[in-house]
Structures are given as structure tokens and as C-alpha cells.
């Protein structure tokens, strides 16, 4: 069939972007490609001359690349983890959200995973990692855990995608062969549904610990050293919380964007934003609690080196960033989200964006100050990121947007079949579940 969308589909709104993308779509893609190409050139320059083109030096030997690494991986935690939790807790309102979330994970993880390689002085020797790597180094724990997480979350994204692919295949969307290939002969039979559900159930249980492990291990990169400001037991959970925190913010932003662009008001209702933003609020509080206890212990112990870093953050060169972080991550979101009047879509958008910025600053504040204040009496280090580093940051973001756009071009960003399933069954299932919560009727009543 040449003509797609012969018969009107109940969820045409979801298929629309795939079946006839507008012209602006291509303009944006081209724009992004330009940025990415330039970024590529900048990186090539770094390869050619060496890391000297960055702003790093002794003693601040880690800069934007590591910061962004931690930041992106953090964002990636949104997706799979959230959707897994929602699925597990059978939250019915999850249906339009899960996939968007999972896609974030897959793409951002790929980008974040590249950053350590960008950061290498000798990327040409990356193979040493495989032939003479050493498992005692936290960096290798990362390699292992990130690979695991990446594969897991892609699978976790792919499997619930199969039925939707089948829909597209049946509607004869081009390129046929792609959908044919990916749909794995899905026909929506009883048996197939059973298989799918079982696989999903195993996956969601598996994914959660993996996700948690990933960011814990990233925090270990710092926590395993003896450097003041890094060597802290709280770092594992602290990073995980931060990750989920920034992740939720990212989802919210994306949801709002798609809602606007693809006119999904019918699917992404205010209730979804409301629930998620309350989740964001909770995370913000938890994050603040962790930050508080992290610094309080440091301050109260008053170990000189710790204090040097502490004051550097609170009153020194990094004070502006530090307090900005507190505002972006705590004061502003809480202020907005506490109040149901301000908890509107624009309000939520502002809060989420400020959280994303704030979380990036948090990574900055974790990485640089500890390096800039060595234990021995050296002068405090200076770090001014160079044009190269800024470009690579920007490039990373554009790659993310492009990736997302390409995905949205070929696959529905909201799971169609889950929506349908919801339409038909969820009401019934939920009703049953609720009655199951309810106390049984009095036996005496029936006795009469």
C-alpha cells in the first residue's frame, strides 16, 4: 500500500509525526548537524594537538569532560529507572510516559559513555583498556556497569516497542523492511502477549539494581580516592538521588516540549505533570537532605584540608556556583512546586530547567574544588574551560536532541498499544485491584 493512514487510527495523533513530518523538522536536523560537525572538528583539533587545547592543568586535571560525564549519566537515570518503578508499582498513569523516559536513557547513556574517552590524553591507546585493563580501578567498574546498563535499557526500550512497530508495519509506513525486520513477526496473539509480559516483568526487576549500581559506581570514582571533599561514604546514594532528581526534571521538560510540538494534550494530561512534579519535589527535598548531611559532617569534623575545600565552596571562588546550585536545586523548585497554584505547566517547566542547571553545577562543584585545593601547600588551582570544552558540551547536547528527533521520526514516542490496552482493560483491572484492597463484606449481612 503506497498510502499510509488509509483508515483513521484512534491514535492518529501519535502516528502523525512519523507518517508526515513537517518541513521545520528537517531545518532543525540540518542546524543540529552543523553544530555537531563543528564539534567534530574541534575534537579532531584536540586529538591533533593534545589536551593542551583544554583549560585543564595541574592541579585541576579533570574538567568539563568528567563533569559532563557524570551529568549525562545522571540524566540517563530518569528513563529506565522511573519507568521500571512505575511499571512495577502498576501505576496506570505511567502509560504515556514510560517510553519517552526509556528513550532518554538509551540516547544520553551513549553520549555520557563517550565522555571518558574524550577526556583521554591518548584515545589511540583505548585498546589497552581491554587487553591490560585492571579490575581494581573504579574506572573499569564503570566500563562494566555502564555497558550493562546500556544494553539492559536498550532491550528494555525495544521489547515494549515491538507491538508498535508491528502497527507501523501493518500501516505500511516506509521503510517497510525496517519495521518488518524489527517487529519480529508480531501479530498480537495471546501467546505473544504472554511472552512479552513475562519478558517485561523479568527486565523491570533486573533494570532497577543495575541502574542504581551505575551511578553508585560513578560516585566511587571520586569516593575511592583520599582527596578531601571526595572521600565520603555518602557519595553512592547521594549521586543516585541526584541522578534520579535530574532525570525526572529532564523527562518533565521533554514531555512539555512534545506536548506542545506534537499536540499531545490529549495524552499528556495535567495529572501526569502533577504526579511527576510532586515526585520531583520529593527528590529535591531528599537531595537537599543529602547535601546538608554531606557538608555538615565535613564542617563539624573540621579537618583542615576538608575545611579548605569547604570554604572554597562556601565563601571562596566557587561560592557563586555553590549558592546558585542551592537556589536552582532546592529553593526555586520547592517554592514553585509546593504551591498548587504555581504547579502549572509553565511553573513546572521553569522548575525542571532550573533543576537541570543546578544539577550540572553540583557536578562542577563536586569535581573541581577538591582538585583545586591540594593537601600540600600549593597555590590554589585555577580552571577556566576553553572554547573546545564548551563546544564539546554543546555538541553533546545537540547529539541528544538529534538522536531524540530521529527516534521520534521513526517510532511513536508514546506507546500506542499500551494506551489501547489501557483503554480496554485498565479500568477493569484497577477496579478489581481496588476491591481486593477493600475489607470483605460482613458475613452477617449476607446471613439475613
Amino acid at each position, binding site marked *: 500500500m503506497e498510502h499510509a493512514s488509509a483508515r483513521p487510527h484512534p491514535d492518529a495523533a501519535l502516528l502523525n509525526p512519523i507518517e508526515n513530518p513537517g518541513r521545520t523538522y528537517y531545518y532543525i536536523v540540518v542546524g543540529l548537524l552543523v553544530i555537531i560537525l563543528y564539534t567534530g572538528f574541534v575534537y579532531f583539533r584536540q586529538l591533533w594537538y593534545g589536551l593542551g587545547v583544554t583549560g585543564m592543568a595541574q592541579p585541576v586535571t*579533570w574538567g568539563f569532560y568528567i563533569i559532563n560525564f557524570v551529568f549525562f549519566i545522571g540524566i540517563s537515570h530518569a528513563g529506565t529507572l522511573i519507568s521500571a518503578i512505575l511499571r512495577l508499582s502498576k501505576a496506570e498513569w505511567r502509560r504515556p510516559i514510560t517510553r519517552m523516559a526509556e528513550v532518554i536513557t538509551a540516547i544520553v547513556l551513549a553520549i555520557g559513555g563517550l565522555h571518558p574517552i574524550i577526556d583521554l590524553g591518548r584515545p589511540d591507546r583505548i585498546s589497552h583498556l581491554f587487553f*591490560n585493563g585492571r579490575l581494581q580501578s573504579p574506572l573499569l567498574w564503570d566500563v562494566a556497569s555502564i555497558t550493562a546498563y546500556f544494553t539492559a535499557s536498550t532491550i528494555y526500550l525495544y521489547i515494549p516497542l515491538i507491538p508498535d512497530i508491528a502497527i507501523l508495519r501493518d500501516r505500511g509506513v516506509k521503510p517497510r523492511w525496517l519495521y518488518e525486520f524489527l517487529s519480529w513477526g508480531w501479530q498480537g496473539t495471546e501467546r505473544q502477549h504472554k511472552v512479552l509480559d513475562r519478558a517485561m516483568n523479568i527486565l523491570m526487576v533486573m533494570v532497577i539494581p543495575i541502574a542504581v549500581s551505575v551511578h553508585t559506581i560513578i560516585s566511587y570514582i571520586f569516593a575511592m580516592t583520599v582527596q578531601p571533599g571526595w572521600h565520603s561514604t555518602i557519595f553512592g546514594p547521594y549521586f543516585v538521588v541526584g541522578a534520579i532528581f535530574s532525570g525526572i526534571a529532564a523527562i518533565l521538560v521533554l514531555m512539555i516540549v512534545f506536548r506542545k510540538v506534537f499536540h499531545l494534550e490529549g495524552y499528556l494530561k495535567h495529572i501526569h505533570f502533577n504526579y511527576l512534579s510532586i515526585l520531583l519535589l520529593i527528590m529535591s527535598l531528599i537531595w537537599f537532605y543529602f547535601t546538608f548531611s554531606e557538608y555538615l559532617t565535613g564542617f563539624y569534623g573540621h579537618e583542615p584540608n576538608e575545611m579548605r575545600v569547604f570554604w572554597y565552596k562556601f565563601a571562596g571562588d566557587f561560592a557563586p556556583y555553590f549558592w546558585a546550585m542551592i537556589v536552582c536545586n532546592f529553593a526555586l523548585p520547592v517554592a514553585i512546586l509546593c504551591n498548587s497554584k504555581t504547579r502549572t505547566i509553565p511553573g513546572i517547566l521553569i522548575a525542571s530547567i532550573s533543576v537541570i542547571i543546578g544539577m550540572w553545577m553540583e557536578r562542577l562543584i563536586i569535581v573541581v574544588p577538591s582538585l583545586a585545593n591540594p593537601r600540600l601547600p600549593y597555590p590554589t588551582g585555577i580552571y577556566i574551560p576553553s572554547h573546545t570544552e564548551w563546544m564539546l558540551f554543546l555538541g553533546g547536547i545537540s547529539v541528544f536532541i538529534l538522536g531524540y528527533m530521529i527516534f521520534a521520526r521513526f517510532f511513536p514516542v508514546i506507546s500506542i498499544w499500551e494506551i489501547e490496552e489501557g483503554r480496554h482493560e485498565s479500568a477493569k483491572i484497577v477496579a478489581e485491584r481496588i476491591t481486593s484492597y477493600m475489607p470483605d463484606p460482613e458475613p452477617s449481612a449476607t446471613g439475613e
Partner: protein
Amino acid sequence: MKWGMVIDLQKCTGCGECAAACKLENNVAIVEPRESEMGRTMLWMDMLTIYEGEYPRLRVRQIPRPCMHCDHPPCTKVCPVRATYMNEEGIVAQIYPQCIGCRYCMAACPYTVKSFNWYKPSFPPGMDRATNPDVSVRPVGVVEKCTFCIHRLQMAKEQAKFEARDLREGDFQPACADSCPTGAIVFGDLENRDHQVNHLAHSPRAEKLLEDLGTEPKVIYLKEVD
């Protein structure tokens, strides 16, 4: 066999000759002004200055600072490719062809002794000729640091082998110890009772930098009593 160094701050006048000798002996690149302003100067042997008290009780301590060659090195643990490791003689060595330049060891070193080749190491035109032929020049993008002049150990061993005898004290001296006019830097085998360092290491004045970290440095300072 555990090589170690004792630096007697009571003798040291802080003349900085050790630093100069080290740079030339090990072909440590000379970093041009613009770079060194960013803090990329490479000194395997550095000079720390500590101001104690206020005038008229002001005392200034000058402490030569090589790599501490810790017995429990925080740097070797974190290296993902074993580009830095502690050899069986206690020297924390760098394998330049192995290093991937992740700079994790630099971040992990509490003494900040490591330096990184941000660009291709450059020598003043002319001096490239006069670089020490016994020491390899590092490529761009790898971490480097004091090696206790391990190349001299190799040569000393060969010499000893050639003369069919064991290493004697003084056969193997790093450039800094060799060049110290006041003899403040003593080098030798910490485990060998006949070696001077063994005695000095147990002197009541002996102290180590950041001892409480438990890194067990093999560079021991004899503190200034007057």
C-alpha cells in the same frame, strides 16, 4: 630491597639545585611562559615553602618534594591500565607507552606530584640535542613523575653484574641526591641495615608528609629542630 630517600631539612638550604638537576637528568620538558601561567609547569622535584609564625618569630621552611614512592600508593590502585605500579624494589614506576592519559592517578595522588604532557614535550631549540640519552622523552598525553632515576638503577645493576658483585651503597643515586651540595638528600635501601638511610629513617627527627593518610611514603624528612 626497598629503595628510599631521606631528606635532612636541618642541612637543606633550599638552593633548588636538586630541582634543576632533576629536570636535566630526566629530560623533563620546559614549559613555555603562556602554558606555565596556566599551571602546567613540570617539576618532578618541587620546592614547597611553608611560612610558620609571624615576625619576629617567622620561620620559613623549604621542603624539596620528589615523588613519595608510597608503600601503599593511592595512584597505582586507580590506574585502569597498570601504567603506574610499584615494582618489587618499592619504586613506583610509570610505563609511558602504557598510559592512556586518563589522569586518574593525578587526581588520586594526595601529594600532587604528577604532571601531564598537555602538549608534545618541547625542549628549548638547541637543548634537544643535549637531552640525556639514557632517559626516554615522553610522548604527548601521558602522565609522568619522579622515578627515583630508575634508569640509573638499571645502569648500576649492569655495572655491578659486569664486575660480578652486588650493588653497593652509593652505586645507585638519583640525580637530586647526587647534586645536593649540602648532602641533605640521602638515598639507599631502607631495609638494608648497612645503608645510611636505614639509620636515618629511624632517627627521632624522622617524619613523613601527610603521614596520617597511611600511604607509607618512602621519602622521609628529618625535621628542622633549629
